[in-house]
């Protein structure tokens, strides 16, 4: 089951650049929440704060609290534990270049010491099917390197890799930005299915996509969360003038 995410007074910096300012929001369990906003407004930084990836950058700093279910991720658990429970698909596809397709998908489990071949086979197949990649790669799972796939296939491979470790929350940073319309709609179908088991946060530049997949949408601008509401409300009757300008394409 997915869990809800409660963000309180979240601030994040890259060096002196105050990238996120006083973010407060509640992301409900088992729903998809979309984050939109112009380039550089802090969407990626925000999702990276939700699984403690932000702090892997030596110049980065973060304050405030993020609760996932019952636990405060910054005080109750180690970053490793948090990242295992909160999966992430990065903005740019990053398969392991020296690993086969199979090994890429199995990597999360294997690197955590899981060795059962039969179960790994099952997990790899299921994850690739979920990520809408199975049909294209089932012939050369162990023959081809993850790096030999096309950009869009690599991104779906990364989605499969994240699903394989069975997280509770899935953070997707523009998962479809490198995909053609067919794979994009497959990914969107996937998001619909996944909601039953996971809580999903998806960053997107595609308004229609946000409208299609997400129950709730947040609009970021210059490091601030301008508006956070039901997707329907954001797209039909936004409460803030800046949100309206953005979604109607008047800037950004």
């Amino acid at each position, binding site marked *: 089951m997915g869990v809800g995410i409660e963000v309180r007074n979240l601030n994040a910096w890259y060096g002196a650049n105050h990238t996120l300012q006083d973010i407060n929001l509640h992301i409900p369990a088992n729903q998809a929440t979309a984050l939109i906003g112009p380039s550089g407004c802090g969407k990626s930084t925000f999702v990276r704060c939700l699984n403690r990836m932000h702090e892997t950058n030596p110049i980065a700093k973060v304050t405030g609290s993020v609760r996932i279910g019952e636990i405060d991720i910054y005080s109750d658990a180690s970053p490793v534990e948090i*990242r295992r429970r909160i999966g992430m698909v*990065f903005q740019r596809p990053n*398969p392991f270049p020296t690993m086969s397709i199979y090994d890429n998908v199995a990597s999360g489990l294997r690197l955590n010491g899981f060795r059962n071949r039969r179960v790994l086979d099952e997990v790899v197949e299921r994850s690739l099917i979920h990520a809408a990649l199975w049909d294209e790669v089932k012939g050369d799972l162990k023959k081809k*390197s993850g790096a*030999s796939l096309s950009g869009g296939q690599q991104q779906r491979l990364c989605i499969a890799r994240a699903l394989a470790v069975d997280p509770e929350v899935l953070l997707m940073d523009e998962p479809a930005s490198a995909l053609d319309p067919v794979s994009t709609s497959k990914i969107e179908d996937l998001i619909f299915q996944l909601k039953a088991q996971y809580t999903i946060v998806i960053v997107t530049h595609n308004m229609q996509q946000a409208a299609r997949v997400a129950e709730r949408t947040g609009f970021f601008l210059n490091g601030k969360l301008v508006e956070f509401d039901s997707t329907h409300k954001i797209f039909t009757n936004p409460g803030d003038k800046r949100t309206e300008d953005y979604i109607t394409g008047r800037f950004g």
Partner: protein
Amino acid sequence: MPNEYRVSTANRMRRMATNHLASGLAVLSTILVVAPLVAIFGYLLFKGASSLNLAFFTKTPAPEGATGGGMANAIVGSGILLAVASAIGVPVGIAAGIFLAEFGRGGKLANLVRFTADVLNGVPSIVMGIAMYALIVARQKHYSALAGGVALGIMMIPTITRTSEEMLLMVPHAIREAALGLGVPNWRSVLSITLRTASPGVITGCMLAFARIAGETAPLLFTALGSQFWSVDVNQPIAALPLQIYVYAASPYEDQIRQAWAGALVLIVLIVGAVSLVRYVTTRGVLKGAS
């Protein structure tokens, strides 16, 4: 097409000439690089091949003045020395490279390690031999293969350390993030992902270091010493190809001088063979499309 986009004939001729000149220079420099290698190898073949026979690979050196005999003990001795050296140099060198690239970034200790490696790289090999003589041989009161292996192993460390560091730093940040994002502990990610991704370069570094020390004579003079007899005991003096070549090349006997050439030929072939074998074995498992 508008006129200003068209390349005039004179211009095109000039471009083609430049192109030919550049390719010509590239071919020339390739020849300059390859020629000495071919020349050395050819000369060794010419001088040494005739002395290569079964006895050369199966017998120990003939007694003073007698003809015949071989370098079997020196070939095996070199193998043992290089195995000891690699057992020390490869793990220590890679570990230091990992420390520099992944853990020590910019820290004082890292700078110290890097500085030490660079200084070590500049230490003349004869000095390394004397140092190991003082530290190991003088204390144990006997020459030994172990002391020779340690001297060679330490000489491998700086090359392996610095190439490993550079190769690890070339692994894209996104790949480390991918591993961390899966909830993989940092140490595990470094070993199983970063090091693995960098492994072709790291292996090349090890091979460079190996090839460099395989022909070293000076560090062995006061440590492994050399021997005319069979020995596989690391606590005893041991023969080595470079030492045997060194002794025989300066010999007054015609037969020994010929054997020195043959030894040099065998040494080169063995180095090239070992490097190729490692390359073959380590690239066999690499997948299509992996960089």
